[in-house]
């Protein structure tokens, strides 16, 4: 009898904490949508900011974020996927492989501001890229490499060993086997996991603060060596650096909403890709 009632309490407590998590997320989303939706307008989305962001729109920041995300994908995806293929298909288990894995996990735990500082030192100053899209993309790429590697390795592991053996037994080389009979089935999973990581990177402020972001730059970049405005940093500026913070509150919420929608959009793409390929490969 006593066991049964304690069972009930545990169950209720678990359920309560789960609802609490949902409540937090719901509150954030409702707050941002409620306060931000009024700011959204064609002008807000397509015009450059005026009067340090108090008026006008956030178009350069939207474009800047898109450029950074695209650059990050182009750099991080090939690097991360190749590392994952090496680790899961080629590297023989041993000390070196363990050290590499440990390094990757550690990299995932490094605070993002440290990545920013690293990017500043290596890309901006040492490699002389300047504060630029290129330097920012590379810094963000370093930040999300662990995510990409780990999720890509996971995707590779879902391909049954029997498919590799079947291919090898037909006289395929290791690379032919990977290229023709492992990657085609795992790439959707690799891409999905990676895009989810990139969605997170799109909202990061600290790494790009030091490597790519412009405080106020109401024109679009011409090359990868130009600075850009980006949504998270613009939001930070509006919320803390503006002379009249309360007056630009609606602009802050509008920017936050756009950023939120962009990240959700990126995640949606990942989910759609996954759904599409799941139907194709089943075993």
């Amino acid at each position: 009898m006593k066991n049964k009632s304690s069972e009930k309490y545990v169950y209720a407590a678990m359920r309560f904490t789960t609802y609490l998590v949902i409540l937090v997320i719901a509150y954030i989303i409702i707050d941002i949508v409620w306060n931000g939706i009024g700011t959204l307008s064609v002008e807000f989305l397509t015009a450059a900011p005026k009067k340090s962001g108090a008026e006008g729109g956030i178009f350069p920041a939207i474009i800047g974020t898109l450029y950074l995300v695209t650059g990050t994908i182009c750099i991080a995806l090939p690097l991360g996927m190749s590392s994952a293929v090496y680790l899961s298909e080629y590297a023989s288990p041993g000390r070196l492989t363990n050290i590499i894995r440990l390094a990757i996990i550690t990299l995932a735990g490094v605070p993002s501001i440290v990545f920013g500082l690293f990017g500043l030192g290596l890309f901006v100053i040492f490699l002389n890229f300047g504060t630029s899209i290129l330097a920012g993309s590379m810094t963000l790429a370093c930040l999300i490499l662990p995510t990409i590697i780990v999720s890509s390795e996971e995707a590779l592991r879902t391909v049954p060993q029997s498919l590799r053996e079947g291919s090898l037994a037909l006289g395929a080389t290791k690379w032919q086997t990977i290229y023709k009979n492992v990657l085609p089935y795992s790439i959707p999973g690799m891409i999905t996991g990676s895009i989810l990581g990139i969605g997170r990177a799109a909202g990061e402020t600290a790494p790009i603060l030091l490597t790519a972001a412009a405080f106020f730059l109401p024109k679009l970049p011409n090359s990868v060596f130009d600075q850009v405005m980006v949504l998270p940093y613009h939001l930070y500026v509006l919320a803390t650096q503006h002379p009249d913070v309360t007056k630009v509150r609606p602009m802050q919420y509008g920017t936050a909403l756009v950023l939120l929608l962009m990240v959700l959009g990126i995640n949606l793409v990942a989910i759609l890709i996954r759904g599409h390929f799941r139907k194709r490969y089943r075993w």
Partner: protein
Amino acid sequence: MVKMTTENNKAKTKISVTNLDFYYSAVQALFDISIDVPAKQVTALIGPSGCGKSTFLRTLNRMNDTIPGTKYDGKIRIDDKDIYAPSTDVVALRKKVGMVFQKSNPFPKSIFDNIAYGPRIHGTKKQSELSEIVEKSLDRSGLWNEVKDRLHKSALKLSGGQQQRLCIARALAVDPEILLMDEPASALDPQATVKIEELIEELRADYTIIIVTHNMQQAARVSGFTAFFYEGKLVEFGETEKLFTKPQKKHTEDYVTGRFG
């Protein structure tokens, strides 16, 4: 150990193994195996689970190379060539020595692409040639009439028995001389098993077949020669009929009569 060969050995030897030891890291799995496998015959490997028969099978196309930490000692010659010599081209070896696995492993591709996988890898590009190979291989494995109308449908939609015959067809498509079969029917229902056994019977004339089986009736039905493995050692090897009716070793007799196993 005296090399085990068949007494009235008229058949030409295809695979000659001498003093083979095999290790998974520190664990020795095969002890001093010596055997001459006759060409264009079906040779069955029997023995209780874990006796090393599958390990032995996988040494013949160097499939064990894919497992880290494996070691071997001794010689395996196929057509008088040492397959573990440094100069051996493993790709060419595996093309010549096909393998069918216990659990059928069709690739998640169309039936056509499954069969064409091997030939494509070995450089056949022309569609007409590929189509010809696909038809021939499927015909050979008795699957053509069942699948000819859905060659471009997924191979995963086939039944278990069909999938296994597809895997056999896929192995045949690269034109091997030897077929290694690792319990090819153990996951199939009796009807599908009969079909696989009939297929083996048909293939015997053209290929040297080595089949691992748990099923002694199956060994008796399909093979001309049988090797009995126990605890990593080859206990007895001979013509299947003799081995089952007049085994030379007590151990073999106990096993084939079902006293242990």
